[in-house]
């Protein structure tokens, strides 16, 4: 049903004759999708994809799967209980969507050796990877890497900045190779 809604909307916009969407249950005839600003049409890919070619359920702020960061305590790399649900949701998505892959990027705060921090970030990414694979994600769907202290989310130099930077981020890639990495 959802599949039909968008071509129907496009057809309504192209015709320019009505601002009222055609009800999605009447199954409007497929319309050739055009792109380019000259048409006055915003291109939309059927299936509810975002600009990276990922389904909206991964990026819509209202969706749990849009939460992509798992935060860690100082010098620690265990996934805390408060993130178990989130990790489980991502595992479930990977199990249901075998063609999808994730890149887990581990991060640390700025204190100490850059190379040791790189390894510490790797441990954090690995901890998330272990949780995902234990919950059914396939090994080849998940790559864990580290950005160490090199890509801070918060550029500050106090505990509130550091706690934001001690984290692992989940990036998605669709089966067609489009996505966030």
């Amino acid at each position: 049903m959802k599949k039909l809604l968008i071509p129907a909307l496009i057809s309504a916009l192209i015709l320019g004759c009505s601002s009222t969407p055609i009800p999605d249950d009447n199954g409007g005839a497929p319309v050739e999708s055009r792109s380019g600003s000259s048409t006055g049409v915003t291109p939309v890919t059927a299936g509810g994809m975002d600009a990276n070619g990922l389904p909206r359920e991964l990026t819509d702020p209202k969706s749990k799967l849009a939460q992509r960061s798992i935060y860690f305590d100082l010098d620690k790399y265990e996934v805390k209980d408060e993130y178990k649900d989130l990790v489980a949701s991502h595992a479930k998505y990977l199990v249901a969507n075998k063609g999808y892959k994730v890149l887990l990027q581990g991060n640390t705060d700025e204190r100490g050796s850059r190379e040791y921090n790189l390894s510490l970030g790797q441990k954090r990414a690995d901890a998330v990877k272990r949780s995902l694979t234990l919950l059914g994600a396939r090994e080849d769907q998940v790559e864990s890497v580290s950005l160490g202290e090199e890509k801070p989310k918060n550029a500050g130099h106090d505990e509130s900045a550091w706690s934001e930077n001690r984290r692992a981020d989940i990036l998605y890639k669709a089966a067609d190779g489009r996505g966030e990495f």
Partner: protein
Amino acid sequence: MNNMHRISRRIFLSLALLTAAVAQAQLSIEITGAGANRIPVAIADFVGDGSASRIVTSTVRSDLERSGLFKLVDTTGVALDENSPVNHADWKSKGADALAAGSLARSPDGRMEARFRIYDTQKGVALGGAAYVTSNDQLRAAGHRIADYIYEKLTGEKGVFSTRIAYVVKTRGQFLLQIADADGQGAATALTSTEPIISPAWSPDGSKLAYVSFEKKKPIVYVHSLATGQRYIVANLKGSNSAPAWAPDGRKLAVVLSKDGNSQIYTVNADGSGAPQRLTNSAGIDTEPRYSADGGTIYFTSDRGGSPQIYRMGAGGGDAQRVSFEGSYNVSPRPSVDGKSLAFISRREGRFQLAVMDLASRQVQVLTDSNKDESPSFAPNSRMILIATEIGGRGVLSAVSSDGRIKQRLSVAAGDVREPAWGPFFK
């Protein structure tokens, strides 16, 4: 520390020809300490071609002074060449223990020839001399060679004025891997990236750098030929690839890979061929490998004992012995080229400071009073250690003598400087 007195002499040798963009990435040097017993030395103005002589003379003088081991004796108005007769008693009475005199002349092929001699005024004898032929745009290099010669004659150890340093500048969202002379002059950018670059490491022959680049959204180890700009990947396995260290023969690199689940130390061939060979097998993090100068030992950081500490093992792997014991965070081991000491970063009361261990006695000395020292790197004569540190919230480089007395600071006007690596002796 100690009774260090501040010379605080700023040397801004910014060349008028530099564009603003280059100038803001140019290192400037500030000297903030000197040795206790500096050798008084007179460097007479070099004779010959005016501007060329001035460049060579000032390069020699500033090199020697910056080292913290020499005190320059005033030579105002005195121009001597290498063949001028020397009145030793006169120079002795001016307080000079040594005197250098030389000249510059154009050779038939249009290049410049610098000739000089160095004298011991106490004994009234010539200690030696040399001639260097150089192109007109390499006069500072000739000055560095002369300063190295004088340094070696007067101290008995090799000078490092002709060596180069590599470091990373972060400015305006860009990361620049730069190479400069040891005095921070003549900076050239080898690589520009919008993603971080860390851990540059010089090949033993000084022609290449290995480093970690994040340009592909994950850490990958590259080897980069400085003269040609050609670069190739030596480690891009699943997971993270980092911490390259050249074996002294230049044929292998120790690297840290997480392909088997945890950061562990491997070797790879420096030409990128073949499969990695695993050296460590621990449940913790093993990283920051560094070969001893004889190639027989690898020092590294590991948290196998619960906190990050320094260990060592044979270059082929096997059993490791813990080397650092004081404190709960000792990282970034760098053995000196002479094999006598180990520089590392030690956390003390939440502050990260440069420390040096005498490997024979295991005695540890903290050399700085800073908060955020990182990435130590020995000069090839083992006398100075280059580190990254932070002053006023900005990343700067600092060179500290291995006894902690002499300190120099290198900073750029706009941006953070970090990840220094001191190159090998000039060949």
